[in-house]
């Protein structure tokens, strides 16, 4: 049951096969591409600020897939049908979290290579950036899932979810970008810890949210 569900969720979200688009990744690279044009090709400035720009681009890219993440399947009655077959909402959301991260985390990490090249991020900075994104994107996915589930039954849910994600993602952004500024990989431990906590609570919070949405 769980495996069938994961396959279905992945087919739906994976940027290059299902109905989901490669949009977040394209958006992410586009920001990295535009930044040098906006501030000028000063290598020093780029090396200093480039990492932060990549983090902001990653955070904004995380907002893009939220609209379809949960609301669509609530409207379809998909979760209702699974519930009747004995699957708990928590399990559905845990599977969705995995599928969501797989569809947006690894492609983003791959896109970091061209983005870093455009922003002249090299050497140790680059490896810290990559590790930071690896540790941080599960947390971003977890926040995104919780917000998508909470706002699914609201009419302006999509607009609201972007606003809600930003403050919640601040700890990840601060530690992630902070590790870059100080070229200190140890700070990434905080990113990983924040992510872990968020991933642990997300299925329960999102599960409760879709149950509450039914009571309407």
């Amino acid at each position, binding site marked *: *049951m769980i495996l069938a569900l994961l396959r279905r969720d992945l087919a739906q979200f994976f940027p290059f096969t299902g109905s989901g688009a490669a949009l977040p990744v394209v958006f992410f690279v586009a920001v990295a591409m535009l930044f040098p044009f906006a501030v000028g090709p000063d290598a020093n400035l780029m090396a200093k600020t480039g990492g932060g720009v990549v983090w902001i681009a990653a955070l904004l890219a995380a907002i893009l897939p939220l609209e379809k993440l949960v609301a669509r399947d609530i409207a*379809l*009655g*998909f979760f*209702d049908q699974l*519930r*009747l*077959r004995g699957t708990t909402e928590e399990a559905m959301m845990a599977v969705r979290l995995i599928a969501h991260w797989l569809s947006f985390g690894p492609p983003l990490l791959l896109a970091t290579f061209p983005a870093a090249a455009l922003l002249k991020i090299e050497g140790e900075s680059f490896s810290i950036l990559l590790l930071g994104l690896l540790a941080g994107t599960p947390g971003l996915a977890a926040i995104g899932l919780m917000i998508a589930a909470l706002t699914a039954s609201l009419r302006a849910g999509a607009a609201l979810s972007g606003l809600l994600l930003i403050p919640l993602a601040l700890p990840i952004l601060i530690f992630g970008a902070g590790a870059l500024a100080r070229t200190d990989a140890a700070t990434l431990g905080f990113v990983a810890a924040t992510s872990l906590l968020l991933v642990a609570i997300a299925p329960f919070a999102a599960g409760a949210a879709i149950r509450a949405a039914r*009571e309407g």
Partner: protein
Amino acid sequence: MQAPSPFLAAENLACRRGERLLFRRLSFRLEAGAACHVTGANGAGKTTLIQALAGLTRPYAGEVRREGALALLAERTGLDPDLPLAKALAFWFALDNAAEPQAIMARLRIAGLADVPVRYLSTGQQKRAALARVLGQAAPVWLLDEPLSGLDTASQDLVSALVREHCAGGGIALIASHQPLDVPGMTSFAIEDFAPAEEDAEA
């Protein structure tokens, strides 16, 4: 394979939508082979009742008891609109270990639509596809919410036939509809009979 005999029962059930009490003191018990037709005007609470019976929402008061797996036909079909019909159904057929999915699709006259994405299907075709999902589930208890709406006469007769067969095989069906079904021995009640009197409507 002798599972305990299926039943579906409501005891003193009361449900609200928003702040409004829709019905209260609703009790019934359906044993194996029973079909029950719930009638009521739009907004009287048929769908709310079905949702509560399915265990998807918690009733305001009272209790739902059930033995046996449940199949639900609701307005929301659960079928992926972007997938071709055969694939959208195949997901549920695989989950439910449906026997003879081809025969089920042929029976509901949707076999010819296998390659058409679900969102291009008409209301009636989507309803028949959802019925195919219900059949594939082979659950003893059926909850059908407006199974006849959007269907042509031939398909309406087919729904009646499916319910007759289901009940003859020891299944239970509760059908919420404002259209008549041709099922002998079917009991029925109007949900309005359980609507609260004006003075206690403000629960």
